[in-house]
């Protein structure tokens, strides 16, 4: 069966520090991969998605970037964090528009 792993579960970082969140998927090949951010009391906002190694699409302009160095690995990064980057970050994988996406357990990011 397929599983998705995200880490760390929680992270507290100072403003201006770098960021690296990692997501890996097991049990499937060539998945579509997604990064979402969930702000308190709001829905999920799609940040990035990837249909293959090295292929990244950005949905909103922001202080973050994403990379997909391997088929089942998706990384969310920042060179300098802002206070507004705080939130709950979720990674997800899927296989097509007629199939649901499956989510990891998320990373709670707090910026001080």
């Amino acid at each position: 069966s397929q599983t998705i792993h995200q880490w760390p579960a929680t992270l507290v970082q100072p403003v201006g520090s770098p960021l690296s969140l990692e997501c890996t998927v097991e049990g499937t090949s060539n998945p579509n991969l997604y990064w979402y951010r969930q702000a308190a009391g709001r829905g999920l906002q799609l940040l990035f998605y990837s249909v293959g190694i090295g292929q990244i699409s950005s949905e909103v302009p922001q202080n973050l970037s994403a990379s997909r160095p391997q088929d089942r690995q998706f990384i969310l990064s920042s060179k300098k964090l802002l206070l507004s980057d705080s939130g709950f970050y979720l990674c997800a994988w899927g296989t097509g528009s007629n199939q649901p996406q499956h989510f990891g357990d998320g990373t709670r990011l707090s910026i001080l």
Partner: protein
Amino acid sequence: AQSVTQLDSQVPVFEEAPVELRCNYSSSVSVYLFWYVQYPNQGLQLLLKYLSGSTLVKGINGFEAEFNKSQTSFHLRKPSVHISDTAEYFCAVSGYYTGTASKLTFGTGTRLQVTL
């Protein structure tokens, strides 16, 4: 482009009572519809999905939803809720596109609070 509206940000209900969480969508193309549940500090878990066929869809934990194309709605229902159903519920829509990654558009969520 698609959009999803969940009009109720919070729904309080007593245990064993029925509940309906409302979801309306708009889209210029055919859609696939999903309901997800999120427990505190966890990711989203799929409750049910509508892809095609019967408009009444049954999901996990006793939930069901009905797709109504004319009213562009996909309301979630449960005939008798339990304390453990307390969570945030998200409606999501995916447009029918060929050859591209699916992109889900989420509503802002409905907090279901079940009390004794």
